[in-house]
């Protein structure tokens, strides 16, 4: 139960963070938690099912644009809007998952990339919904329900993001330890055998894609509500690559690892970009170092836990 204790301490530290950080640093903290949620959602596919998505920005962008439209054109409170946007992303992902799981291995990855790039192209053309290259601007954090306004402030919104992350984490933790999660693990280790045991592996894969997209969509929706704008960058392959890097650096096959990976990515990006514009070059070197020397990621480095642990 030591791992549970560590998690509780980590959650407490995150909950008390606003007391110790200056307000401008809270922007970074909110982005880190949002990206942590995003990376964790991808790891359900990459780490737990060995489904390498090269297009997870699709989830983020779908959630962001859905939330943007809900908040701009309806009176739905931001709390519900982000949840609805996540659900929307998950539902769309059933179709995406259906198409992508027609293939396996590298072809699966290419299909996820192709669909994300397709959505990126659509976002450029579908002006009424996406604002094309201008994106959606002035997205409000609509108050409510019951006149609640606390998440309109930066600190308040931080707690909304933290609540989403903790809830998603607990959901994922339960998921990967459930009978459903056991089948995902079987697919990861030997899909043909899993199928011959009587599991409809394709349906499981579509289901995990939908769940990953729903949580990734929630992350994108939180970002849209926080930043107050969306643009096509949120659907771009660069973001898909970055979130994959966060998962791998943090530790694929764990839930905490990708969150740590996202925080690490953001901090290093902040630090390096204050020195040089070509920070991505140096980050690339760091990534190569991790792939070669720390294949289990930061979490593996800290805990020595073997890959495939449930947390």
């Amino acid at each position, binding site marked *: 139960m030591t791992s549970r204790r560590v998690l509780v301490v980590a959650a407490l530290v995150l909950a008390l963070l606003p007391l110790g950080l200056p307000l401008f640093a809270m922007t970074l903290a909110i982005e880190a938690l949002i990206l942590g949620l995003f990376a964790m959602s991808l790891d359900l596919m990459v780490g737990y099912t060995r489904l390498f998505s090269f297009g997870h920005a699709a989830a983020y962008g779908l959630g962001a644009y859905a939330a943007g439209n809900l908040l701009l054109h309806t009176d739905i409170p931001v709390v519900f809007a982000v949840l609805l946007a996540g659900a929307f992303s998950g539902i769309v992902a059933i179709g995406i998952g259906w198409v992508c799981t027609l293939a396996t291995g590298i072809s699966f990855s290419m299909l996820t990339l192709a669909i994300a790039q397709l959505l990126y192209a659509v976002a450029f053309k579908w002006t009424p919904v996406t604002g094309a290259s201008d994106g959606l601007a002035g997205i409000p954090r609509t108050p409510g329900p019951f006149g609640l306004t606390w998440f309109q402030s930066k600190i308040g919104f931080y707690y909304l993001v933290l609540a989403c992350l903790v809830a998603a984490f607990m959901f994922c933790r339960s998921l990967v*330890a459930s*009978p*459903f999660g056991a089948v995902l693990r*079987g697919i990861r280790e*030997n899909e043909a*055998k899993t199928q011959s*045991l*009587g599991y409809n592996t394709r349906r499981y894969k579509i289901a995990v894609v939908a769940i990953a997209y729903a949580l990734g969509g929630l992350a994108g929706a939180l970002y849209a509500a926080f930043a107050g704008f969306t643009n096509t960058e949120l659907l771009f392959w660069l973001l898909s690559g970055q979130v994959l890097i966060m998962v791998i650096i943090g530790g694929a096959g764990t839930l905490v690892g990708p969150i740590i990976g996202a925080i690490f990515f953001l901090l290093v990006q902040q630090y390096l970009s204050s020195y040089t514009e070509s920070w991505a070059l140096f980050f690339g070197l760091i990534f190569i170092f991790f792939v070669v020397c720390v294949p289990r990621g930061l979490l593996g480095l800290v805990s020595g836990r073997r890959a495939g642990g449930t947390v």
Partner: protein
Amino acid sequence: MALLEIDGLTRRFGGLVAVDEVSMRVAEGEVRAVIGPNGAGKSTLFHLITGVLKPTAGEVRFADERTTGLSAHRICQRGVSRTFQLTALFPEMTARENARLAAQARGARRWQPYGGDAIFAAADRRGDAALERLGLTDVAHRPAGLLSHGDQRLLEVAMGLAQQPRLLLLDEPTQGLSVEETAQAVDTLASLLADGGLTVLLVEHDMEVVFRLAHRITVLHRGAVIADDVPAAVRADPAVQDAYLGGIE
């Protein structure tokens, strides 16, 4: 009535007829071996029965229902479990987890995305019983990938057994084992089958294994059935000796 009925089953790969109008019946409780030289079509026949391959012609009926054309997982859900010629396990999971995942597939709530203690406990009961029947209790907590090759072969059988199948298909259970390992594995299988209650279809090319385990033998040669009888009669059959046994004994 036979549990498994195969009629005119044919599978072509281009110009090659791998399985050629095979018909056979396997009765409930029977241990049936399918033998034949390499390339006789034994594994293809298995793939056709389990839905991994679709037949070019003919049909398979299981428990009086047509299963031809169903996908592999559906056929398994109807009670047909199998092992593979090349060991197929989940190497990073323990032997017990392997058996549990096999047993869990038979439960109605195998999709449940939360909790699952009761489901796992029920699956473990069946899995542990299967491991015990194959003498694997002592290695149950070791990762499957680290077991000896002989234990890995038996673990696959245990996984099939944990599913409480109506028909168990064993694809060369002693494939790749040393002489001693084979003897041990066959002893274990013999005592398992002696308990009765299992309907087994067995592909094997080790003759001693076949004559020791099988109640009845079907001989395939170039995809077609050339004999289908009790072991003693098959051994005495001149056509079989000509095609197969003669070359070995």
